[in-house]
């Protein structure tokens, strides 16, 4: 491509070198000033009080050990998996724990994938200290054969959206996923180790002694003002951060202070008191969420992300739903079936073209497009008829064939592009529309083509 040689040619910049992520939006001076002034006046952007958490939402996936935790608009996905591995030589009777948090540009444009940024390293280290070093998971119980086989429990966390306080959201997500996880049961008989599938034996939960939960405190104006659960913008203007991990028994598991702020012993004691209250609340919430999910699973109710995450409304500018007349759908379908040509002759045995080849499936047209409900609606819809017609054809076709199981049409596959032209000649008043049949018709037998034509005729007569 040639570019116009203009005076500003020199400014044609080489944009986006390989893999470079976008820059994070800078914080303007007025935002910084306003936030600090608001904090001085004890006001927060979202109307919270200083010691308030944002809303916490915990939802579980369809699989065990998978959850999404939402802390306001910060979202973290956690997934636990397990594997049988050889233990570390130094600790032959202990299972292996592995924690990993990932930040991706999906969460915020400024985050880079796969890079060990300072933030990521410190977050990972903090979570490791919170979950591993607090010994909340009993590693001895993960041993299968001493010195030979132990369970490795792997906890992967992904930040889905970043609106501040990743630490707390990730620590909640991590411990919830670990509590929710079930590993396969194993038995050892002599030298033989048997791993049972969930059908054979119920999977067993990990033995978790306590739930350490991180609570973050942001300090402003050299430690004069303190906020719990800072948002992303508050984090940007804060002077220092104190993270305390605690369990509901008021045992401090980890404490970390960062930034440039001097804290007095009184302040830390006050923070630990606030932490105790917050941890009690969050632990209760986690237990309630776990119970609810357990109940839903036991009763065979609906569970999983699809059920538990509400459809978030993007906007209030919406359209009214249009009513679709579905009254005469069945008659229409019946009529079409009656009019259609009988299915082409069939024979039961599969065709083997050359020795050594095999046939997959029943040799009939794929029925993956067979979406019963939506088709019926679409069929009745006057607008978008071309599409609906195409869908209906497919449906009838599959119905016909499905009644004759183990069938196969011996018609050779016809690859033809000419049919659409024929159609245009048939009905000159009608807009020649290329429908989806074009894509599928390439592998159809002629009966369907004839059927297509008839369908079109019917439309014009209506």
């Amino acid at each position: 491509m040639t570019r116009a040689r203009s005076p500003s040619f020199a400014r044609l910049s080489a944009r986006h070198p390989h893999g470079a992520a976008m820059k994070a939006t800078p914080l303007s001076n007025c935002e910084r000033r306003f936030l600090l002034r608001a904090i001085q006046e004890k006001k927060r952007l979202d109307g919270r009080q200083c010691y308030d958490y944002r809303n916490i939402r915990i939802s579980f996936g369809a699989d065990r050990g998978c959850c999404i935790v939402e802390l306001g608009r910060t979202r973290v996905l956690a997934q636990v998996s397990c594997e049988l591995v050889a233990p570390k030589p130094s600790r032959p009777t202990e299972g292996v724990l592995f924690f990993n948090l990932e930040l991706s540009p999906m969460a915020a444009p400024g985050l880079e994938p796969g890079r060990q940024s300072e933030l990521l390293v410190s977050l990972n280290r903090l979570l490791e200290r919170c979950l591993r070093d607090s010994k909340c998971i009993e590693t001895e119980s993960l041993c299968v054969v001493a010195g030979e086989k132990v369970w490795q429990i792997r906890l992967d966390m992904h930040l889905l959206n970043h609106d501040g306080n990743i630490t707390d959201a990730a620590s909640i997500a991590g411990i919830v996923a670990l509590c929710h996880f079930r590993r396969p049961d194993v038995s050892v008989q002599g030298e033989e180790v048997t791993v049972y599938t969930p059908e054979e034996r119920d999977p067993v939960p990990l033995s978790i002694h306590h739930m350490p939960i991180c609570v973050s405190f942001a300090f402003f104006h050299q430690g004069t003002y303190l906020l719990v659960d800072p948002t992303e913008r508050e984090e940007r203007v804060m002077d220092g951060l104190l993270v305390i991990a605690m369990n509901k028994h008021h045992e401090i598991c980890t404490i970390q202070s960062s930034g440039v702020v001097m804290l007095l012993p009184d302040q830390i004691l006050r923070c630990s008191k606030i932490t105790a209250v917050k941890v009690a609340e969050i632990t209760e919430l986690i237990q309630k969420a776990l119970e609810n999910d357990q109940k839903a699973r036991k009763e065979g109710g609906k569970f999983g992300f699809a059920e538990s995450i509400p459809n978030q409304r993007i906007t209030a500018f919406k359209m009214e739903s249009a009513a679709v007349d579905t009254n005469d759908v069945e008659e229409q379908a019946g009529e079409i079936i009656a009019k259609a040509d009988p299915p082409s002759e069939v024979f039961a045995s599969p065709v083997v073209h050359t020795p050594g080849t095999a046939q997959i499936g029943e040799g009939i047209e794929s029925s993956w497009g067979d979406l019963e409900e939506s088709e019926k609606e679409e069929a009745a819809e006057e607008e978008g008829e071309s599409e609906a017609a195409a869908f209906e054809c497919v449906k009838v076709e599959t119905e016909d064939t499905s009644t004759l199981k183990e069938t196969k049409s011996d018609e050779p596959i016809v690859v033809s592009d000419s049919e659409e032209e024929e159609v245009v000649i048939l009905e000159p008043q009608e807009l020649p529309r290329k429908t989806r049949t074009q894509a599928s018709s390439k592998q159809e037998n002629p009966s369907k083509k004839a059927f297509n034509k008839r369908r079109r005729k019917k439309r014009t007569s209506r």
Partner: protein
Amino acid sequence: MAAMAAERGTAAEALVGQVVLPGDLLLLPAHYDEDAEGERLRLSAGTAPQGRLLCGPGLRRSGAGLLVTKCGLLRHRPGGGGAYWVDSQQKRYVPVKGDHVIGIVTAKAGDVFRLDVGGSEPASLSYLAFEGATKRNRPNVQVGDLIYGQFVVANKDMEPEMVCIDSSGKSSGMGIIGQDGFLFKVSLGLIRKLLAPKCEIIQELSQLYPFEMVLGMNGRIWVKAKTVQQTLIVVNILEACEHMTAQQRKQALAKLSGN
């Protein structure tokens, strides 16, 4: 004939006000007239549309008609050749020539300032592009300041360039935004709604108490009221407008003005 059969798509007029999806093909009157008449020879030149048809955001011209590139509601404005565009709900801003936006100064590089406008790359702003600026008399711009300006260059091959003066050299409202107030971001759809003439939301808000506001087409809004509390209220109302119906908004405002 075969070429025509290959055209699938709907008449653009039939879809006005409805949801369109990327990849949809919209046929313009000129095209389906041809289709309907088939191969019949037309004696007259036909009714050629007067004026040129404008193809707005979310649409691209393709051989037969308009190709949809964004999902949203198809809009149409008659008059002249008419104009079609897609009203979409996106948050990512793409610079467009002539748009008024709010930028954050990220660097001072020699003769130009670099501004973050929320696009894929920073915009540049010459220090001479301010009202009354000369080589001697430079504007006082610091890194982190907010600047309200207009794009003069915005295309896919070049770095976007902004100015803070109009064609006659006057600022006409553009320039550095004051040090107070608060900046926040909303969706581009909401910004367009707020910028529409006689926007109800703005009119209702202005009855609460006086405040200053700058709206950038890049989704950024700067608000300044007398106190922090009042600024926060305006910010929260505007952010919530995205999800509120007109009725809910009126109720919320009535509650506020009652206090």
